[in-house]
């Protein structure tokens, strides 16, 4: 029965391999176009089994380095929701594309890499999953192979991402050298007794991990690729990178630091606190100066990564509720929904206007009322206005930071709140453009139905989570407890 816990993984693997050939199936010389449906079926089975597993068998099941616990299932659920939104939106986006099979196949395989990443308790498995997640996304970013922007974005993304993979491998080798193990629990028990002679290597490994994960998490100063990649990639892939790959990198960082490296007597919490403050401040200030909607989304996603990083900056003892960590996981969920929806809204605007510079948003509420309304809701959610979902996760993160045993915890929370207040200036500015400014052209723009379905689903989810957060808070609390519980005794 334990094998049932592998259903989400197997479903993604099987359907991911099937999707590409399914895209080439022909019937009387015309393509059947089965690939997207194979993809959606695979994702749906994975999501249903994830939810079912979460309800029925919350106790962790371990297969060597692969551990299926509530933390894994939580991330699996979040990433699958993102993948489903992206796939459905891609039905519209990729309508004219002849290579649907590889596109959806790669999407599924990358999703598989992400959820394995969340499940890995072994550094080697973690690295394999990291590459399984990354390599398809390079191809997906460059999917418009005749578009120079897409190619440039992919190149930039690939070079930095490959560098980050190399750094992670180096960090893994250092950790293996110190501890003689690649399993996270064994690493933890070995590190807790590590002598002073290995300390420099341990610190180097931590720095390399932070940089390696930091590139994917897009924390400052490793954020440079994000705006270009998001702008150049097909817009739905922008959503996939911003919400999928980025959150999966956070899952990996949570596992490695909270289950493994925490035992090492090095104060990486302060490092994360500094990086968090710099990341959110740079993201918010830079977002204010953008002229293009996708770049604005990119910088706002950098700022949001800064908030999530606060979860790694708040140490906790085993006795108290890891409120900051639970808040971080909650923000992962909320951010993933908000950001995916924001990119899909951008896709809806881009289909007809073909540009996403902010001037084309002037008076958009009269031209695309549904899209504008959902963008307004999403932006208020990102700014953390109650009763939308982003509010409660921020409250939990910031409160967790105040609880921190470090005396700077309160200042970190204050800095984050001031940032949060400041971010309203650009979120409000876009809303002002959409609702208060006069459009240059009054004509109504048709809103693609598929995008609207996704946007309405996301908007409803934003309100549901915001108005009744209790079950979601309990979910993230138990996911956080599962993560802490996977530390081993």
């Amino acid at each position: 029965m334990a094998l049932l816990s592998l259903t989400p993984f197997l479903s993604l693997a099987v359907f991911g391999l099937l999707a590409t050939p399914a895209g080439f199936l022909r019937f009387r010389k015309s393509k059947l176009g089965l690939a997207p449906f194979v993809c959606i079926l695979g994702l749906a089975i994975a999501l249903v089994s994830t939810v079912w597993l979460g309800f029925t068998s919350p106790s962790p099941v371990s297969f060597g380095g692969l551990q299926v616990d509530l933390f894994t299932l939580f991330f699996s659920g979040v990433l699958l929701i993102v993948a489903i939104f992206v796939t459905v939106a891609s039905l519209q986006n990729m309508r004219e594309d002849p290579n649907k099979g590889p596109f959806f196949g790669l999407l599924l395989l990358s999703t598989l890499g992400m959820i394995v990443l969340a499940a890995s308790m072994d550094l080697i498995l973690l690295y394999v999953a990291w590459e399984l997640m990354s390599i398809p996304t390079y191809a997906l970013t460059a999917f418009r192979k005749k578009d120079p922007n897409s190619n440039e974005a992919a190149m930039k993304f690939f070079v930095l991402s490959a560098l980050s993979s190399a750094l992670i491998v180096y960090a893994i080798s250092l950790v293996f050298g110190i501890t003689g193990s690649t399993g996270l629990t064994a690493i933890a028990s070995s590190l807790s007794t590590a002598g002073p002679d290995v300390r420099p290597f341990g610190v180097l490994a931590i720095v390399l991990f932070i940089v390696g994960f930091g590139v994917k998490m897009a924390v400052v100063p490793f954020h440079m690729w994000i705006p270009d990649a998001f702008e150049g990639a097909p817009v739905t892939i922008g959503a996939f990178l911003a919400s999928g790959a980025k959150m999966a990198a956070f899952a990996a960082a949570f596992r490695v630091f909270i289950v493994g490296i925490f035992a090492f007597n090095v104060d990486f919490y302060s490092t994360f606190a500094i990086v968090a403050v710099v990341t959110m401040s740079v993201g918010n200030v830079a977002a204010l100066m953008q002229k293009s909607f996708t770049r604005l989304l990119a910088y706002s996603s950098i700022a949001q990564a800064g908030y999530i990083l606060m979860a790694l900056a708040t140490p906790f003892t085993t006795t108290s509720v890891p409120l900051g960590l639970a808040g971080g996981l909650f923000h992962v969920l909320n951010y993933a929904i908000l950001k995916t929806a924001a990119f899909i809204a951008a896709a809806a605007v881009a289909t007809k206007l073909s540009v996403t510079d902010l001037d084309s948003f002037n008076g958009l509420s009269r031209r695309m009322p549904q899209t504008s309304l959902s963008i307004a809701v999403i932006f208020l959610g990102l700014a953390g206005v109650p009763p939308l979902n982003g509010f409660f996760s921020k409250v939990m993160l910031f409160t967790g930071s105040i609880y921190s045993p470090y005396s700077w915890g309160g200042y970190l929370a204050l800095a984050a709140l001031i940032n949060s207040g400041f971010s309203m200036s650009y979120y409000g500015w876009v809303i002002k453009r959409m609702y208060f400014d006069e459009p240059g052209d009054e004509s109504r723009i048709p809103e693609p139905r598929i995008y609207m379905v996704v946007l309405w689903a996301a908007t409803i989810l934003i309100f549901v989570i915001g108005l009744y957060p209790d079950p979601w808070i309990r979910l993230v609390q138990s996911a956080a407890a599962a993560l802490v519980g996977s530390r081993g005794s």
Partner: protein
Amino acid sequence: MIGLLSIAIFLPAVLAAPTYLLGRKNPKLAKVMGVGTTAIVFAISILILAVFQYGQPGFQLSETYPWAASFGLNYKVAVDGISLPLLMIATFLSLLSAAGSWDQITFRHAEYYALFLIFETGIIGVFTSLNLILFYLFWEIVLIPMFFFIGIWGGPRRRYASLKFLIFTYSGSAVMLFGFLALYAWAGTSAYPGGPSFDYDVLAARIPSLALPLQLVVAITTFFGFAVKLPIFPLHTWLPDAHVEAPAPVSVLLAGLLLKMGGYGLIRYNLLLFPKAVSVLWPYFTTIGLITMVYGASVALVAKDIKRMIALTSVSHMGYVLLGAFTATVAGVSGAVFQMFSHGLAVGMLFLMSGYIHEHTGTRNIDELKGLRGKMPQTVTLLFLASMAAMAVPGFANFISEYLVIQGALSVSYLFAIAIVAPSLTVGYFLWMLRRVAMTPGIGPKNEPHLHSILILVAFLVPLLIFGVYPPPILGSVITPTVEKWIGTIIALGAK
């Protein structure tokens, strides 16, 4: 069983969606539904008045439901003598403002009334909630409709004013939220049995044992959030812009209700929660209040736009609230609460009138509004009465509230005698304005607003005159018992 308060809070928000959906094709229906809903909510608030037990100092009509128990959150609403007068002007001004919008809002009615109802939910929620996060939630709900009101239905500089309003108040609330979260964390450590909580009563019981530096941090950060809304002197610059650009019925909400959120927050969450911090901070806060009073009045003296002048009188009059509240005397605090009530009515009336005057003369410039007495005799009569109320002429409720504030201040220190400058300046600029607007000879045909508009204006005057002549029903049996109880508590806990 859902109680009266919850119905009053959520009925408008629930009806906002049908108002929008049905009203999109039929603007008349949107107007009817908008005004009708506010009328129903006002009727519910009358019902609350009927079941309220007068003379009782504690919280009444309390409702508690679990909300997000996993995070120490519950849904808790109640009224006491401090919130009841504000609840009443919230429902009353919403009704009058919705009725006043009938003529003055000329486009996108469905959106307007839907947002209006969401605003009403927020404002009633702010005055009744007794959980910090619930309070913050309603506090922010008020913000968003107001942003759209100014931005869509406002004057020529509406875009600038709306964004300025949003950024100022949202930043203020972010700092205030820090205070709330810090309070949750610091008063929720293992030293306090029962775990962390956002509940008002729980926190009120715990705070006295909180260390003074922590109390000071929370008191100052929350003060900042409330002070932006109030607004106090250096943080007030969003207010004249927002008022000048907002349509007149929205100015009624803005001055009559939104500013009162700041005043209410100061009393409920600052003065009453942090007695020890107040004993350290009161000289600073009252001085800021004094400066705001005099500053607002001085700037109003030179304002050219009649709406800008009224906006600046609000700044000045809100200074009284700050001064009265932090004297921490029964007279001062009762005066502050009563001042919010009476000022809300007086300034609401003035703003709505400025909208009618603008509509019928095409200008709001005081120097151009010559000879209004000939053109709009009924309106000018009402303008005189409203100005008398704002000048705090005896017979109007404003006199009693300002008298109480200054009495409270003088009982603390004779230095507060300086406060008397503000009322004198107020009389000065109002009389000067009236002389220029009404007493100059003017020519032009009679151009009076409709009778129903005049009736709306008269409705503002009724409570002002009743409670100005005979205040006990509101002061002695509602406000003072609650204030006496709280002041007794906080003085026992070390306020001064």
